[in-house]
């Protein structure tokens, strides 16, 4: 799995961080998403898919 987050689209409400804290974080200066682990291990895949599904700004893509 490869995880990508679009920082232009992100509106910074942090749902992804709550779903998959090992994969997503928010930038200190403006709360915009950062990807901590772009190739997360299999046990995190479900959490990442959930994060992509609940992201309100459709900023997270998974390939």
């Amino acid at each position, binding site marked *: 799995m490869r995880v990508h987050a679009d920082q232009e689209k992100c*509106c910074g*409400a*942090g749902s992804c961080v709550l779903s998959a804290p090992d994969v997503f974080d928010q930038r200190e200066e403006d709360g915009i998403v950062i990807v901590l682990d772009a190739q997360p291990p299999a046990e995190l895949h479900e959490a990442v898919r959930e994060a992509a*599904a609940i992201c309100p700004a459709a900023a997270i893509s998974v390939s």
Partner: protein
Amino acid sequence: MTTAESLDALTVPAARASGCPFDPAPSVERARQTDPVIRATLWDGSSCWLVTRHQDVREVLGDPRFSADATRPGFPFLTQGLRELVGRNPTFIRMDDPDHARLRRMLTADFMVKKVEAMRPEVQRMADDLLDRMTDGRTSADLVSEFALPLPSLVICLLLGVPYEDHAFFQDRSRVLLSLRSTGDEVRTSMDELLEYLTRLAESKQGAPDDGIVSRLVARGELDFTEIAAMGRLLLIAGHETTANMTALSVLALLRNPDQLARLRDDSSLVKGAVEELLRYLTIIHNGVPRIATEDVTVGGRTIRAGEGVLCTVNTANRDEDVFPGGDSLDVGRDARRHVAFGFGVHQCLGQPLARVELQIAVETLLRRLPGLRLDIPFEDVPFRHDMGIYGVHALPVAW
């Protein structure tokens, strides 16, 4: 269905069924099942679309062709007051990108998960202090005025740098602004008073800066005092009325569902999930999230034309059986994370990490400290906020 019935069925705001104060209005629920994107008549005689299903609500709120700009002709207003305020000191909740994003991003760092999680000990202390006072030598109280309302008020005051001593003033003005019954005059006066108060507050931070959001917006130097005041007003109102009502309504819903209450008491690891489920089940933004189409867009098989207003009824979306099987019952073990109680799209609630922390602490602390918590009046006598844009209860007499 006769014409008269169908017209009557879809007047907005729609009435809830008596005896079912936690459920969306039956007319709108029926629409979700039979005709999920449907025309409705607003209180002022204008018409708009109701979008009632989960998938369609996400589509509309996630689509930039639906605008949140209330100055566009045809924008649906839920009250007289809201309509009269158009164009006066707008805030980013009723703007589109790029203006919306530019302003919202001035605040996202303050509400990000890390920041808010770091506030837990402080919020816990506030909750404990309030309960100490509420229970001191007494066995009954109004949970709204002594706990549910002061907790988020204290928190948002701290964050903004607003003196909590002034809470009676801003709580009263917020009430006027959120009441479906307020006249245009009342709303304008309250709005002006709040803005004047916050403008003076912003000015005062110039000489005496502190760590609050208002002061930092002043120091940032990108906005004038009126713009900062408008932002402060949005945060102040959004920051205390919402969580306050969710807290009180959550307690009431749990008291009415003793099996769920017992599960939660037995296993406090359920609290986070239970708060999501309560947000879903109760959906206090109960009259819908408004937008206006800027192009012709097909939603759920219906064409919404450019210039037509839309209300996304997030409360019915959160009962959508396709996403939440058995959604008409409260189940604290459910995975409810896909709820749209905070909206969806780029306007999705900025304060949601804060609301979550406040609600988790409020619910956990109340259940732990007051094992005998019960309603102190007959359920039929609970004063529900049918008259307010944010649903909840005006008061909640409890005993323990």
